[in-house]
């Protein structure tokens, strides 16, 4: 082995093990700076010995053992009077320590404590006595095992600057006598969020490099992910930690698609989703699931991860559930009321309910001091203005954004958009009216936006403006010779279409041309043939997709008819399709009434169903109830895991005593049989009296489906979820307000109550 090889192996091993080694040493010697020095001594020893003796069998353990030996030597030399330290030095020194054979044993003996040490070290590295920069540098150095020059390169600062930051940080920790511990009590949450902040900062510096020529520095992203996963392993009960990991995994899954062939950034809705990494998406979803299992209120990282998951779950940009994303942002700004979060919410609102809804909110942010100098504010505003055809204003905003960003590839994109706006504005000037009509139309827009979800609304606009655009060459075409392809080309070349609209229209018309032939005379294209193409191409697509293509065709038909090239009713055979949100239909009151009266329903099922109906609570909450959690006179029961009370009414109250029947503890709803020995549930899910387990969701669902098969037109029966929502629908019909329903049912967001009550759209509320 050459010394170069040994060097590389030692570097790799150090990166993998440094957190554990340094953490263990800090616990021994009580000082971060000293611990790191001792650890570095061990690395030096490795570089001396490994080229000749070869890399040891377990190089990580070797480093750890040597470092600990140095620490013991040091403690002896210091001859500390501190009893605790002395005792520890004695313990370690008296361990049998001849050579490397028992190194594994030493390490294994210490292993149980090591995880906690790493966690302590993370909390110390992110301690609030340090500046943010120092926290980042120290964390990367101690937990990530990065060398000073690597950190310097990643953050584009000089090596000496990083070295100084680290030296000062270590001194500050020593001066402040920061204890080597995991904080507890009220301190813990704040300190944990500092750790999360540092990790996310590292990730973001890699993900959206604030300076330099490249858009991303992937090594920093991966480093942050590693840190996040280490933390998640050490704090499995913290939902926010899993939320952060999920957020980073999901964002990282898009990394390959975020830059184009020449390194330019590609925005989310234009990314090739085939290049998203499904392995990372899967891991992101898994982490999000762990976050949900950890419970507690939804924190900022979990919410942001949920938003990222919405994107990851959409196979095409059109399928993105923007209203859901807007609702998540609304929840986010409640827990994280930052202007940046508001700005993102504005973008989501614009996508869900039209550019005007977004612009209204953005305009409230322009005076925000925190956003002064933030390039995305003018960038977003420019985009919304362009979509409203206010090209002159849009250009100014894009230019401002370009002057504010420090990233050169981002700047290029912004300047390109500014140039496009200038062209659009120029054209609009020539034809006179476009900009004006754009403004005039804006006012009416929000009214229809809620219904049509953003895109389709542009139909009306385009048809209106179309007549005014007089393209060269158009007049030269004799009616009889107009082909479908030619007309489509002219239609798409109109100057008054925004880039988004044009892309959307082009999809429709390209498909039409492919089916009917580009050279087909437009005269011969009938509504019947168009309908055939639509049925073949989008017959099975979602309603929103169908409607978008229908809108495009209607716009084209109107435009062509004005020129006398085609019959005006080209789109006549195409009906607008409903765009249902996945909504649960309710079960008739009368059907439920008769269900309650059916004599063949056992007591347990009858009680459960009535309880679910009367409380409108999720079935898993009801199933999680224990006998000891019930407050029978108060007609309520506590869902311990959620800290939420379920409230029922008289029908349930009449049945519950029969169901409880002398039991004092254990699950309220029990399975029919005792569990088999191979599938023994935890003690909390067993009845101490009968030994039976808790009724499972699957079984409860099956029983309800079987009993309601006749209610369901498809014969498969109703879900428990539908039962709950039936109650909400009925209460909504009875005039209950949204807050009343939310407090009853535990729905976290008004959004999910849509359909039960009338809720003001966000567009109304921000205005």
């Amino acid at each position, binding site marked *: 082995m050459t010394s170069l090889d040994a060097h*590389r*192996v030692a*570097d*790799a*091993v150090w*990166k*993998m093990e440094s957190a554990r080694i340094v953490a263990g040493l800090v616990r021994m010697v009580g000082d971060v700076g000293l611990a790191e020095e001792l650890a570095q001594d061990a690395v030096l020893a490795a570089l001396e010995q490994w080229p000749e003796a070869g890399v040891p069998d377990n*190089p*990580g353990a070797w480093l750890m053992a040597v470092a600990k030996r140095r620490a013991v030597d040091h403690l002896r030399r210091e001859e500390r009077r501190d009893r605790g330290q002395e005792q520890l030095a004695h313990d370690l020194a008296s361990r049998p320590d001849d050579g490397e054979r028992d190194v594994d044993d030493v390490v294994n003996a210490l292993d149980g404590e090591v995880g906690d040490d790493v966690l302590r070290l993370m909390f110390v590295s992110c301690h609030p006595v340090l500046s943010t920069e120092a926290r980042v540098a120290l964390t990367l150095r101690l937990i990530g095992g990065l060398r000073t020059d690597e950190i310097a390169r990643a953050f584009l600062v000089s090596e000496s600057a990083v070295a100084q930051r680290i030296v000062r940080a270590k001194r500050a920790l020593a001066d402040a006598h920061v204890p080597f511990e995991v904080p507890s009590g009220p301190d813990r949450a704040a300190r944990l969020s500092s750790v999360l902040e540092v990790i996310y900062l590292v990730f973001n510096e890699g993900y959206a490099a604030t300076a330099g020529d*490249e*858009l*991303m520095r*992937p*090594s920093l992203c*991966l480093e942050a*992910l*590693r840190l996040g*996963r*280490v933390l998640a*392993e050490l704090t499995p009960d913290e939902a926010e930690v899993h939320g952060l990991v999920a957020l980073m995994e999901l964002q990282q899954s898009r990394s*390959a698609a*975020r*830059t184009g*062939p*020449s*390194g330019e950034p590609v925005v989310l809705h234009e990314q090739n989703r085939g*290049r998203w990494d499904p*392995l990372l998406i899967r*891991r992101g979803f898994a982490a999000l699931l762990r976050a949900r299992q950890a419970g507690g209120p939804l924190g900022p990282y979990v919410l942001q991860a949920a938003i990222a998951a919405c994107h990851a779950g959409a196979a095409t940009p059109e399928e993105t559930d923007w209203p859901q994303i807007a609702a998540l942002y609304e929840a986010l700004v409640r827990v994280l009321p930052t202007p940046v979060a508001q700005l993102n919410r504005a973008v989501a609102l614009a996508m869900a309910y039209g550019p005007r809804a977004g612009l209204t909110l953005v305009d409230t942010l322009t005076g925000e001091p925190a956003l002064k100098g933030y390039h995305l504010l003018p960038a977003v505003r420019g985009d919304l203005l362009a979509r409203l055809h206010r090209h002159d204003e849009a250009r100014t905003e894009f230019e401002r954004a370009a002057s504010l960003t420090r990233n050169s590839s981002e700047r290029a994109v912004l300047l390109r958009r500014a140039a496009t706006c200038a062209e659009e504005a120029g054209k609009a000037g020539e034809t006179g009216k476009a900009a004006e009509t754009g403004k005039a139309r804006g006012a009416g827009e929000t009214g229809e936006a809620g219904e049509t979800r953003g895109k389709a609304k542009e139909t009306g606009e385009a048809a209106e403006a179309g007549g005014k655009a007089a393209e060269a060459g158009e007049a030269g075409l004799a009616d009889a010779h107009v082909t479908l392809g030619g007309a489509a080309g002219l239609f798409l070349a109109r100057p008054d279409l925004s880039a988004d609209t044009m892309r959307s229209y082009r999809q429709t018309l390209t498909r039409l041309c492919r089916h009917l032939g580009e050279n087909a005379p437009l005269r011969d294209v009938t509504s019947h043939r168009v309908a055939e193409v639509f049925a073949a191409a989008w017959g099975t697509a979602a309603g929103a997709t169908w409607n978008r293509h229908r809108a495009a065709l209607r716009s084209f038909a109107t435009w062509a008819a004005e020129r006398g090239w085609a019959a005006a009713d080209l789109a006549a055979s195409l009906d607008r399709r409903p765009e249902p949100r996945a909504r649960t239909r309710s079960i008739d009151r009368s059907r439920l009434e008769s269900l309650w009266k059916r004599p063949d329903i056992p007591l347990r099922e009858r009680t459960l169903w009535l309880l679910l109906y009367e409380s409108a609570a999720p079935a898993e909450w009801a199933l999680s109830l224990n006998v000891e959690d019930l407050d029978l006179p108060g007609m309520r029961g506590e869902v311990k895991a959620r800290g939420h009370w379920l409230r029922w009414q008289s029908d349930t109250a009449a049945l519950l005593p029969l169901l409880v029947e002398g039991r004092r503890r254990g699950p309220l709803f029990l399975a029919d049989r005792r569990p088999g020995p191979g599938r023994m549930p935890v003690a909390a899910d067993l009845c101490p009296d009968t030994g039976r387990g808790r009724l499972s969701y699957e079984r409860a669902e099956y029983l309800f489906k079987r009993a309601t098969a006749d209610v369901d037109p498809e014969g498969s029966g109703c879900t428990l979820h539908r039962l709950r929502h039936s109650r909400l629908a009925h209460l909504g019909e009875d005039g209950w307000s949204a807050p009343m329903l939310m407090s009853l049912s535990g729905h976290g967001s008004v959004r999910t109550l849509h359909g039960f009550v009338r809720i003001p759209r966000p567009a109304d509320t921000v205005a």
Partner: protein
Amino acid sequence: MRFLMTTKGGSRTPDAAMMAEMGAFIEEMTRTGVLLATGGLEPGGLRMISSGGEITVTDGPFTEAKEAIVSFALIEARSREEAVELARGFWKIVGDGEGSVQRVFGPEDAPGPGPR
């Protein structure tokens, strides 16, 4: 960077203790985010040959059993050395055998001035 670890057949059949140890190892690697995907492969499989636009699918012949790849693991590591260290942990559990570690090229390795 990503690496594909593959192992060849012919090593000893795993016993219960080794399976348990391997299970723990895989779980640990998955949790720390190192292991992206792993699995065992059926011996042989189908052989496909595309030649002159014609695709033939046959049941063989295959390389000798001890040359055939029987398992794989896709891992994420910061360097080749780190990948080797991770693979070392695997071989310590498996014992005797043979395999390879190959870099998996990603979008960042595309030629030209693309993203790095």
